[in-house]
């Protein structure tokens, strides 16, 4: 997840017959469930797509620290504070593995960071929404991490080895994140009137944005078809969104909360819930930079980077002095 609207650089999916022998061997390896490793030959499009996808995922983890960091200093108990700190620390760690995975494709973390800070590269739209009450920590864990897991579990089988392996560890931690979010929601839903109101309000505000996390419908999309052929995208956006809705509705019922969709209903024939699409105009507005928090999020990351320049320079200078002293001593 966290990588929406990745446009494939491919021109559409070639058949095996149209490929040259090198590319055919590459595709056949993927078809057979094999892994591609950093030193293997790969088509340029595959490399570029993966850099964008992994980079966008990494950036999402980094920016994703902000809406949750917003509540660490106001967490209601010492235990909740510790759990939230651990979660945000995990997210920074996920960012680190993912940048490392991207680096195996020949791009540097510094370059990816510059592209994030300049706005050239995106991060998930969800992190441009504000966290307004403590219940939002519950909703983010339950819905946002829940949606992320939907996408990331299949990505453990993705064709690019370093990405697949990073995803294994990330998934373990994400499932703890989702459980802690749901646990917050349970406490709130079983709590005082004010807490129940906060919980419902959080669900109301995060439901649509969570559905948007899967990206717009990718039916007939050439880009998605290519990514799926390369196994860097494992399921269609609609398929994952449906799975997410099917899973969340009973969870919301268990909490005694109402999913903010008057047309939501079980469809016996399909064996799925029918639901209303989120507001895609809003989604595209957020992508364009007009979400409620885009400006603040990017400004916060830019400030952290700019304010930290002297620290990075200082530590580098010290390391260089140490190296020089060591050389001189030899």
């Amino acid at each position: 997840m966290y990588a929406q609207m990745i446009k494939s650089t491919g021109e559409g999916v070639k058949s095996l017959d149209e490929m040259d022998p090198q590319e055919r061997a590459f595709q056949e390896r993927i078809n057979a469930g094999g892994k591609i490793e950093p030193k293997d030959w790969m088509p340029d499009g595959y490399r570029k797509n993966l850099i964008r996808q992994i980079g966008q995922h990494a950036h999402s983890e980094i920016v994703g620290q902000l809406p949750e960091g917003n509540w660490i200093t106001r967490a209601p108990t010492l235990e909740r504070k510790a759990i939230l700190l651990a979660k945000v620390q995990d997210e920074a760690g996920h960012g680190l593995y993912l940048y490392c995975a991207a680096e195996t494709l020949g791009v540097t973390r510094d370059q990816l960071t510059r592209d994030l800070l300049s706005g050239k590269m995106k991060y998930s739209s969800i992190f441009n929404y504000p966290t307004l009450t403590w219940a939002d920590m519950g909703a983010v864990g339950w819905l946002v991490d829940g949606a992320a897991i939907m996408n990331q579990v299949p990505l453990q089988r993705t064709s690019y080895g370093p990405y697949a392996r990073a995803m294994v560890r990330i998934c373990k931690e994400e499932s703890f994140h989702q459980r802690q979010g749901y646990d917050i929601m349970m406490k709130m839903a079983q709590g005082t009137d004010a807490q129940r109101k906060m919980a419902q309000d959080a669900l109301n505000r995060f439901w649509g944005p969570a559905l948007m996390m899967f990206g717009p419908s990718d039916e007939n999309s050439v880009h998605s078809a290519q990514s799926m052929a390369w196994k860097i995208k494992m399921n269609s956006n609609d398929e994952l969104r449906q799975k997410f809705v099917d899973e969340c509705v009973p969870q919301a019922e268990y909490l005694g909360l109402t999913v903010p969709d008057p047309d939501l209903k079980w469809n016996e024939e399909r064996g799925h819930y029918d639901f209303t699409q989120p507001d895609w105009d809003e989604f595209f507005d957020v992508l364009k930079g007009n979400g409620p928090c885009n400006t603040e999020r990017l400004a916060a990351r830019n400030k952290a980077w700019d304010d930290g320049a002297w620290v990075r320079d200082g530590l580098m200078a010290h390391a260089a002095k140490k190296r020089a002293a060591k050389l001189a001593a030899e």
Partner: protein
Amino acid sequence: MSTPVSAPLFEYLCRMGDNTLVLGHRISEWCGHAPVLEEDIALANTALDLIGQTTLWLDVAGEVEGAGRTADKLAFHRDVWDFRNLLLLEQPNGDFGQTMMRQFLFDAWHLSQLTALKGSSNEQIAAIAEKSSKEVTYHLERATDTVIGLGDGTEESHSRMQAALDLLWPYVGEMFLSDDVDAAMVDTGIAPDPATLRPAYDKLVGDVLTAATLTKPQDDFAHKGGKSGKRHSEHLGHMLTQMQWLQRAYPDATW
């Protein structure tokens, strides 16, 4: 009902727990804003350790007090005058250098305190010290490396670290002031006399500052009033306003 022994012990436990609570809060303010990703992780990790330690100290404080207050009740329902943390720890983060200088000056004291507490006559305290000292050994190692790296880095990083040291040095002395609570702890074999920790601290800090090419301020003037609770800085009230808002706005809720 407090006995003559439990009153100073409660006070002492609050000092330990409030130190970690207040510093843990300050560090957690950095979340997502650090100079580099590895530092974001390290800061969150340090804050997490300190909040964990807070729970241990304040839980025992609540037991010793015997008034039914839990660690959460103590953390979130006391006002400024009841806090017993060192003034050093409530100082604002400032730049990253100031944050790490504060961390180093505290960690060096904290580790020597915890090391002594491992031999405490109070088993609960000895056990907390045993666990915490492992974490704080790492905190001190990291803070030391950072102070040296930035002190002996570029001209700018050097001057920022010197400014941080000059700003924070007047808060060092409070860590070694002995009062009646400390005397009661010494008498019962619970904790060391803080004054006795000073020579080793001065040696350690002196060595690190030398390696960092930083100059220890000549004036040893020490602000006081944090650990006794007599006079905190203005900063603590603002911190509590944020830390305790939810619990006070919704006092009948459980979370």
